[in-house]
């Protein structure tokens, strides 16, 4: 579906403001948020997202999560790039329909620069590892 990522983003942002208890940062998300963006806690991170603190959000890619634990409920990772004031960023989210929550899988500076370039687009075409 062409606008799949737009729906995911819209619903994720809505969940951040209306049901923050359903947002679950996993992996190193909170440590990265502390280290790179001075966001100290989970509520602070969700408040930032809910209050449009992720500027110029743009869709990056959609991938099947490589750590899917079951074939019955495959999880998809939607990644987006953003800026927060002067800093570029990368966020990857997963809608976990089985448990009815949202996972924030990654939240850190982009590893390949902040602006989409021809090289980035080429990388997208040939496939690239999850950040």
């Amino acid at each position: 579906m062409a606008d799949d990522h737009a729906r995911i983003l819209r619903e994720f942002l809505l969940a951040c403001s209306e049901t923050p208890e359903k947002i679950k940062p996993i992996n190193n998300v909170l440590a990265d948020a502390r280290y790179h963006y001075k966001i100290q806690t989970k509520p602070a991170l969700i408040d930032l997202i809910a209050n449009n603190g992720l500027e110029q959000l743009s869709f990056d890619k959609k991938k099947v999560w490589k750590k899917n634990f079951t074939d019955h409920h495959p999880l998809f990772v939607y990644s987006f790039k953003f800026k927060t004031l002067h800093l570029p960023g990368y966020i990857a989210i997963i809608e976990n329909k089985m448990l009815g929550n949202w996972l924030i899988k990654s939240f850190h500076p982009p590893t390949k620069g902040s602006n989409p370039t021809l090289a980035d687009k080429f990388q997208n075409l040939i496939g690239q590892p999850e950040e």
Partner: protein
Amino acid sequence: MSQKTHCPVCGSTDISFSEHYEILSESYGGSKEILLFENFCNTCETPGDFEEKNDGIIQSTVDELKARAVVNILNDFIENGFNLSSMERVLELPQRTLAKWKNTGKPSAAGVSLLKLIRCFPWLLEVAEQNFEFQSAQKIYISTAYTFIANNSTYMDPLKIKAEEKSPFSGMSYTFNDNSIRNVTINLHSSTDRDFHSEQIINSPQLTCDR
């Protein structure tokens, strides 16, 4: 009855738990080592703070370091000859505000940011004195930059530079020619034997500054 921890990814309750130390730092407030917790789902191999235990520990440590930063910053100002009441006047804060912050160590988040800004850029107090008038602010900023250059661009604590400028033995003054920041005369004064020759201009280079 203790509630079992569930993995937010797969829902499993087969969760293990570990601890690690992390250092939190706060500018002007120092650092503190804290013990943080991490869960690990043995079913889907996802790590994270599933029990959300760390937020409280981190927040209280950040609050403690910020309180320490407030006290340190205000002590720096006092030790360098700044008067808190005068600073309150310039910043248009009610009298005793800074003293209260120093004693309780608990200003608002905006108060902590204000203190860090004036500690990092003490010349902002002069800008505030000039009612944040833009042209005056630029001149103050440029003067500060020239002072930095005149000190061979080596790092000097801006607060100490500021304290030295307050002294009658200050080595420099600036004249903004044609009321423009683009053309500045720097007057270097001799202070041999602690005598201050305010009219004796040793060198008066004409420097221009391109914006």
